[in-house]
């Protein structure tokens, strides 16, 4: 019989020190939300609008002034807009830490708003200290979000070190973490799980499908994610959000990390 414990010890430390200073987030090369620079848009150009499957890029209503409305809550990071754009208005980026507390922060805006809304409810720290118990519900995902959520407990990310745990029972859960566009058959189990959670409780829409429906929302079987279904405290678009993006959003909920995105882009 092999000595597994000895083997594990010999393999040494596999866990990153991220998000501590100088730690490796493990996402080298991962493409995130393309950056948008409306100043580079050609007048009346619709190339990106036509290329965008989930409708994250749409002609803006006249009163908004800008040429296009870019909603990162619908972005699936497919990079087709980058390829379609003839003028470089969309450029590839590694911006994946897209967790926000207000849905409107995912929509590109010229001016960013005040930070008053950045405080969650101001109470989570007082209620839970630094720890968090999470109940995950798959409401019809493609399994990408689950694959990355499962990765959180691999030795590289080792989520437990941050005091965040998945719990089987909604009765013990502080956070409902929802993935998927919410299929007709999962709507009821999802609402029952939410109903079984004690208050105070928080909700995270993880992945573009849960935020807005993504590419699978609508149609005969799916809703538009959590839109109109329950209050959401943290929105994390991504297709899927990578494990580091999930960790950042969880720490943001716990007020242990700052929100990076406002007005649809990473702060300076």
């Amino acid at each position, binding site marked *: 019989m*092999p000595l597994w414990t000895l083997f594990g010890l010999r393999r040494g430390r596999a866990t990153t020190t991220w998000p501590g200073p100088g730690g490796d987030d493990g996402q*080298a090369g991962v493409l995130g939300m393309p950056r948008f620079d409306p100043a580079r848009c050609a007048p009346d150009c619709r190339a990106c609008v036509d290329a965008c*499957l989930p409708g994250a890029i749409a002609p803006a209503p006249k009163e908004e002034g800008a040429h296009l409305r870019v909603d990162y809550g619908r972005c*699936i990071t497919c990079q087709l807009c980058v390829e379609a754009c003839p003028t470089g208005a969309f450029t590839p980026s590694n911006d994946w830490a897209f967790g926000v507390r207000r849905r409107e922060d995912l929509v590109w805006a010229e001016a960013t708003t005040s930070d008053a809304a950045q405080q969650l409810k101001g109470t989570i720290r007082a209620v839970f200290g630094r720890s968090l118990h999470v109940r995950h519900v798959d409401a019809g995902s493609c399994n990408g979000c689950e694959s990355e959520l499962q990765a959180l*407990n691999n030795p590289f990310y080792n989520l437990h070190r941050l005091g965040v745990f998945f719990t089987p029972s909604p009765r013990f859960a502080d956070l409902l973490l929802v993935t998927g566009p919410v299929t007709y058959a999962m709507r009821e189990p999802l609402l029952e799980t939410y109903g079984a959670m004690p208050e105070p409780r928080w909700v995270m829409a993880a992945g573009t499908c849960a935020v807005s429906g993504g590419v699978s929302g609508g149609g005969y079987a799916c809703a538009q994610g959590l839109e109109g279904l329950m209050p959401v405290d943290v929105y994390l678009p991504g297709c899927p959000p990578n494990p580091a993006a999930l960790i950042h959003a969880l720490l943001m909920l716990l007020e242990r990390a700052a929100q990076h995105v406002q007005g649809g882009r990473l702060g300076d």
Partner: protein
Amino acid sequence: MNGTLMHDVGAGELAATCEKMLRDGGRMQMAYAWFPEPGGPAELRYLAAPGARQPFALWRCRPNGAVVPSLASFSPLLGWYEREMADLCGVNFEGHPEPYPLVLHEGAQAAIPPLDPRYPRAQALVFQSAPWRLPEIESRDVQLLPFGPVRADVFESAQFLFFYIGEGILHFHPRLFFKHRGMEQRFAGLTPESGTVLAERVSAVGSVAHALAYCQALETAADCVVPLRARWLRVLLAEMERLYNHLHYLGHLCHTTTLKVGEAEGKLLEERVKQMNAGLTGSRFLRGALVPGGLRRDLNTAGLGAALETLAGEFTDYVDKLERTNSHLDRLITTGVLTRKTAFDQGAAGPVERASGLDRDMRRDHPYAAYDEVAPVVALREKGDAYARAQVRVAEVEASLDVIRRVLSGLPEGGVRAPCVAPASSEGLGWSESPRGSLYYAVHIDASGRLARVKIKSPSFSNWRVFPFTVHDSNMMDYAINEASFGLTIAGCDR
């Protein structure tokens, strides 16, 4: 349909045609329905594989109001396809042994079948959950345990019902399709390019396999020749996908046998491959690389070979330890036996069927991409238990590493994308051997060059049908191990 030998079969001749195919050693692959004329009747398609290296046989049946017989009593694996056609396309089959809804849950109401083009694209089903059929098992000692659809830990949603006495499972009933997203309908009306992005999102851990089968279906329809370099790089992508899936599988299997360090090691190796994937394509799931006609851009493979050699050494050491861990092996050997006959009849796919002695692999038997030049060694085991299924995966990791070595050393130079425009009203069949087995995309283009109908046959749809046969008469303590040994996804099955 391009890529197949197609002929018309009348509804009355279906049974005899199917019987002959089976008698001659062939096997049914899938069946689906579509509506060639908007507002017109459904047309049925049956796909069969007469044998390795022979073209697929495709039967087109236009019932024109005639009664369509169920073929499930000849070829049991067709049972689910027929029920799916009944739910989504409104086709009724006479004499079906299990005449119940499958894909749509009881209580889901649609005035028009959802895949009928007349169904309003954005209209949600009316749904009020209603009672559904279970086998009637009554005895004082028999208990019923419903588990799910929200399960412990981070799992995909599905409900499992166990009829059990003490530790013994009398009957197991998986209630699936909670995650049915209507993905096939989401393709309708899209441009072929957009469809690739959607195909990548049917089952994330099969993103490459799905996009590849989809692209190849369009390339067949368009008569497009994919540049050589792109075909080789497609093999690289497909094998990288197999690597991280199988490593996850081995780690998860250790989780179920409570071999903690073994679990950590498997999942760490998986993570390393996902990080390599990101360096290769910008996506940990290898998304955004494929397009009908080749690849969206060339891939930078610098450093990949060396990283994989390190991983290969660690993998050998890992597997060597697993093979000497009795507590792990004891839980796998003789657990969840799938006989060769059940595997064949019920439609087992991929490593699951290869662990039960069925020597089939699309990469070798119906080569695509560059598999005719870099063919893998196909792993085969006979016993059909959880251990055999794990052994097949281990051998496939080694075979994948070998294929990748050959791809990296022999990668031809040149462009990676050819124009690919599928003509109006054309159709094509594409396939791939995903990490979980045979995957088909049947693609129909409408008169305006957009997608009219896309049928997806995923390996997990096949293997979920098979899995319960290994659970009946087993015991509760082995259930999680047995389920893990199948390596199923639910997103792929439910679509």
